[in-house]
């Protein structure tokens, strides 16, 4: 075996080794300069929860505890109470008097969102939830309930890092589980839309055709 051959083999092996590297050098960068820039998240991203309101400002939560019942991590604690007759908090007889989610336990499975009969609890794109003590990780109605205009509260109101632009996507996940269960019903919700969000077109990939079947 000659030296030339050795050199050739060495270069070939180096090429083999660097091939991946060189190929990647030509491709665009996938990382972003977080927290200076944000990535666009998938529409159905499971971020932290919010409790929605109706257009008139009434809370959607009726304190039924179905979310707490279905939660596999047992991280939700709800207590209902009688709606004050002269100043009701939610439509109907009952409202969520206590609503707490322990974000340290939550596994973001969104079963609570599926279980909710009034679409009171939905998930947002918000994901920045680091805290400096365990107590702060238990979100109460103060944090979870959206503003009367539909804007979610953020844990760090003054924080320049928060992406307030994405807050409007608060109930992006909602239509997929709308009562009718079909994309054709986009724009025809069975429930009043959340404050501040309004109606949106069907998601990408969803059909807009007339549903089949005898009754709708």
């Amino acid at each position, binding site marked *: 075996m000659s030296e030339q051959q050795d050199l050739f083999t060495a270069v070939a092996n180096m090429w083999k080794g660097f091939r991946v590297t060189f190929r990647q050098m030509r491709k665009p960068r996938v990382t972003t300069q977080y927290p200076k820039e944000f990535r666009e998240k998938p529409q159905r991203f499971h971020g932290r929860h919010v409790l929605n309101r109706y257009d008139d400002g009434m809370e959607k939560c009726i304190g039924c505890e179905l979310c707490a019942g279905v939660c596999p991590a047992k991280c939700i604690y709800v207590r209902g109470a009688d709606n004050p007759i002269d100043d009701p908090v939610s439509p109907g007889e009952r409202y969520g008097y206590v609503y707490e989610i322990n974000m340290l336990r939550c596994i973001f499975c969104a079963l609570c969102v599926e279980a909710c009969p009034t679409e009171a609890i939905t998930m947002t794109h918000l994901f920045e939830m680091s805290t400096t003590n365990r107590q702060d990780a238990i979100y109460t109605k103060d944090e979870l309930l959206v503003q009367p205009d539909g804007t979610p509260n953020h844990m760090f109101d003054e924080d320049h890092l928060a992406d307030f632009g994405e807050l409007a996507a608060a109930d992006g996940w909602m239509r997929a589980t709308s009562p009718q269960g079909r994309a054709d019903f986009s724009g025809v919700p*069975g429930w009043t839309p959340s404050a501040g969000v309004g109606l949106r077109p069907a998601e990408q990939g969803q059909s807009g055709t007339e549903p089949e079947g005898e*009754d*709708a």
Partner: protein
Amino acid sequence: MIVEALTRRMNAHPTDSHTMERYLETGGYEAARGAITKTRDELVETVKESGVIGRGGAGFPAGLKWSFLAPARPAYLVVNGDESEPGTFKDRQLLERDPHAMVEGIIIAAVANEVHHAFVYIRGEYPKPARRVQQAVADAYAKGFLGKGIFGGDYDLDVTVHLGAGAYICGEETALLNSLEGRRGEPRLKPPYFPAAKGLYMAPTIVNNVETISNLPYIFGEGVDWYKGLGHEVDTGTFLMSISGHVNKPGNYEVVHGITWRELIYGVAGGIRDGKELKAWVPGGASAPWFVPEEHLDLPITKDETGKQGSMLGSGAVIVMDEDTDMVAAAERLVRFFAEESCGQCTPCREGTTWLDLILQRVLHGGGREQDIDLLMDVSDNISVGLGWPPKQTTICPLGPSAVSATLSLVKHFRHEVEEHIGRGTPVTISGVSS
């Protein structure tokens, strides 16, 4: 075709047939006077022999019913005058024009069944007939035909006249008994509460229709042979038929069974109004399935033949509908009657009849959908399981199954009319989504 037996007296003396004087003058209370000397067995046997069938609707032989009376005493006799089925108005005639015939019948029936207290339950909307009956009972007491030791003998008999409060269901015998006792007019469970065993105040009770009871003086007065000779060999005696609707001469007619529907409608009732075509008729009260001319016009009117054709003669109410009738509207009106008159006990009747009515109303007002005909049929099937005739009764009383007759007849004979209604209107709107 028209005969005069029960109606003889009221036809001959239109102004005072209801008075005691006229009744006595025309041979009244002689049958009762004779009957009280006989034994229970003899009397029951005579009624059985006469073949008189109950005129309340079910057509059960009266003599057989009497023989089923449990031996416990006291026993009671209740005369069912709660005539409230749409199209039925025959008992009214008897109560108003010939109340003494019923009182005399009561005496005979009471003696036959060892009853010392009889009740007459009259429909609440019949104030005039009730006044006449009350007067007749008072007169009979005054003459000593009722009260202690009737006809001077040692048999005691009291008669109480009671007015209902306007519920159709109280025409059902056990609901009537509940109502008499002061409870809600709701049918009782059968078993165990068969009136003949556990009726009024849990005592054995005979419940008979006014017309059945009014037949008795004639059976005992003129004799069984005369009675059986009046008409049909099976459906003995004469029948009062109430003919209403689009005929030239609506009214009560006393006829014998065996004549055809054509004879009844075109002969007795004088044909269809304004020369129109006959479209359909209800042969025996609102709960009977409808007849249509193509199939049924030349059939004889008998209990058996009507039953074979999937309907019934019931209480003898014939409602005639001409070619201009909107059959969906007709069916809706009948169903609405039953929905309003359901007592509310059984779920299928309470909820089902109202739902049927809501669907028919929707169809009628242009909100019908393709699937509504199937829906009507399936809801009817859930109320009257199997949709057979006679209905398989799965509710406490027959009111629920009765209510589907009109719907079934509508879909069976006039499906095209329903479809027309459905095609005509705009589809129903659900939660803001058009389907």
